[in-house]
């Protein structure tokens, strides 16, 4: 009897929590939906008129996050760097093998039931990996004129690297499935990103200002450069995290 009463009490409290959550969401969202004033259009019209001319990027989203708001993008990459460092710290603290069974030699006594990696998976991921890698490079390098950019292309590149490292079974001749190499790529491309952002300091036009003005390199070159740096950094960082989770690591 007392037990049932306790359950009842908990369930009333639970319902109250749900009600409060919905009330909070409504308090935030209803003023947005219910008022009938128009959306502000000044920034939209300004970007539509001047964005391509000032930054050289046909993709307005790219021109915002690498042209007008490049400082925020630097902050985002630092957030990702901290996240990857924390994950690697936890993995190296708790033990190297989070996912047992994916390596060639760690299933006990040749018992194939304990082995998670199958022939089907190896063949499919090994053949699909390079194609995804090329698609990721395309998304990354053409981010200034088509949908995509550094972050999107970087994540696609990370998927390609994970596929390759699953498909080749951590063999020695595949350099991309070694986590040390990926960590070096990430560090070097982040350093190059910071250096590229500081070019403007040397030439006296300001932090993250575009140093290319048309002779000989058009201004869009700066956006392509930043996209390539960010893409390599994001791709190597996420792939580093996932390869370390897979277990074949030299941490």
């Amino acid at each position, binding site marked *: 009897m007392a037990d049932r009463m306790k359950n009842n009490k908990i369930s009333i409290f639970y319902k109250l929590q749900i009600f409060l959550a919905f009330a909070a969401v409504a308090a935030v969202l209803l003023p947005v939906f219910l008022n009938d004033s128009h959306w502000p259009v000044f920034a939209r019209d300004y970007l539509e008129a001047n964005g391509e001319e000032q930054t050289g990027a046909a*993709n307005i*989203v790219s021109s915002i996050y690498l042209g007008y708001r490049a400082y925020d993008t630097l902050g985002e990459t630092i957030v990702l760097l901290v996240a990857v460092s924390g994950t690697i710290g936890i993995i190296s603290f708790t033990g190297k093998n*989070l*996912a047992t069974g994916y390596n060639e030699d760690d299933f006990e006594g040749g018992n194939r039931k304990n082995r998670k990696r199958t022939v089907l998976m190896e063949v499919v991921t090994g053949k699909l990996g390079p194609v995804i890698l090329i698609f990721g490079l395309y*998304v990354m390098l053409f981010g200034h004129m088509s*949908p*995509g*950019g550094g*972050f*999107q292309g970087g*994540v*696609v590149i*990370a*998927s390609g690297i*994970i596929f390759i490292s699953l498909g080749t079974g951590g063999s020695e001749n595949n350099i991309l499935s070694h986590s040390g190499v990926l960590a070096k790529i990430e560090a070097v491309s982040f350093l190059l990103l910071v250096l590229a952002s500081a070019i403007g300091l040397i030439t006296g036009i300001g932090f993250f200002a575009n140093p290319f003005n048309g002779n000989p390199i058009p201004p869009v070159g700066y956006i392509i450069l930043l996209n390539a740096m960010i893409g390599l950094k994001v791709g190597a960082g*996420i792939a580093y*995290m*996932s390869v370390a*989770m897979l277990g074949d690591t030299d941490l």
Partner: protein
Amino acid sequence: MITIILVLLIALSVFTLQHRDLLQGVVALSAFSLLSAMLFYMLRAPDVAITEAAVGAGVSTVIFVWAVKSTDRKDES
């Protein structure tokens, strides 16, 4: 079409929250990401759609599956 996708998104997220089998919850979350990528594409944000498809349906699903594998598959609370 957008309404159908939104209703499906709510259904999938409720399923993910309420289901006891965490692996099926992860798969439902991946379907959620794929549907919302489709929604972003229909609302003319292809950049966000690429990110959502690659991160939500790809990398985060892989990470969640590894997390479920190295802990418990059943939700005990």
